[in-house]
């Protein structure tokens, strides 16, 4: 190879290296950080749904906009996992309040047992754990307008002779951002420390990237 060709070769290598370095530098800030549960870079934008809150007021997509929302599913006849989750979420809420952070956060419990969970029952139940909680109710079709979007599973067992039944349901807690996007799914088992830590990291990340 003569000197001229070698110089051309060097120039090409230099350009290639510069390009590679630029591209790598561009990718690093956009790569998915190691935050448990975060759905990035493809958070799911939710579509309209129609439920009622415990006061009988409509609750749809507009009430998710402008706030961060924890949403999880269960039923009031569930004596073990649902009360634990609600107690943990109440602790999360109380710790955020005490820390004077900018909350703008709502905690929502959605009943997957519309037959037995009346609005009044739901209101008393969620209010017992924390007066700031929102309980949501809908007919099975209305429920599916939300559960279908989030990939939530729920299934009623066959009733016993006394009419009682259990309901299997998704155990995860879903985090929706102020743009109405599903940005994280927090899987069980749940504890307040982990939820708080993940929420803070996810919120910081989303706020930077939005």
């Amino acid at each position, binding site marked *: 190879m003569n000197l001229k060709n070698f110089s051309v070769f060097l120039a090409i290598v230099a350009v290639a290296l510069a390009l590679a370095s630029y591209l790598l530098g561009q990718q690093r800030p956009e790569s998915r950080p190691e935050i448990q549960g975060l759905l990035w870079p493809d958070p799911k934008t939710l579509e309209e749904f129609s439920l009622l809150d415990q006061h009988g007021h409509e609750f749809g997509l507009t009430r998710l906009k402008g706030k961060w929302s924890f949403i999880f599913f*269960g039923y*009031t*006849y*569930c*004596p*073990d*996992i649902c*009360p*634990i989750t*609600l*107690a*943990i979420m*109440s*602790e999360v809420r109380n710790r955020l309040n005490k820390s004077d952070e900018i909350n703008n956060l709502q905690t929502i419990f959605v009943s997957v047992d519309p037959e037995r969970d009346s609005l*009044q*029952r739901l209101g*008393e*139940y969620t209010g*017992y*754990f924390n007066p700031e909680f929102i309980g949501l109710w809908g007919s099975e079709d209305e429920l599916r307008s939300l559960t279908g979007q989030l990939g939530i*599973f729920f299934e009623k067992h066959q009733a016993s002779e006394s009419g*009682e039944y*259990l309901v*299997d*349901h*998704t*155990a*995860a807690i879903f985090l929706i951002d102020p743009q109405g996007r599903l940005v994280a799914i927090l*899987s*069980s*088992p749940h504890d307040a420390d982990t939820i708080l830590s993940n929420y803070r990291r996810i919120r910081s990340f989303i706020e930077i990237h939005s």
Partner: protein
Amino acid sequence: MKPFNLLRLSFLIPLLLIPVPGLGQESISIRNIRINEAPPGINVTAGYFEIYNNNDTPVVLTGVTSPAFERVEMHRSSVKDGIAKMEKQGSITIPENSNLVFKQGDYHLMLYNPVKKLEKDEMIKLVFIFSDIDSLEATAMIREIGAGEEHHHHHH
């Protein structure tokens, strides 16, 4: 052996009637029994405890009753593939020289239809029923959901 010696030995016979610590409720202890307070309007709640089997053979817990509740069932919670489930348990075996913990998210009691509204810190009676040994009575305190552990030891 000569009959005379056998007769002398007969005084030892009453010793055979002294119960030797072995399979029995004496070797079962139940500790840390907690019953959750039920939220308003809710007639089912959960109970948790630890059961210690200090026998050299397994014991089988077949049920629990309480005069404070219409019905008590044993269940086991689990989360499989992200789905929370509960399965009713007909009987539960506690292996020899081991313990079994009924706790949140796992084995628990489901207590249905309290005969009257139960308040936090109230004490209620539970009866633990076994297949091969006498049942065991215990008392438990109603506590706030998610409250810390309490320690009530019950054993013979």
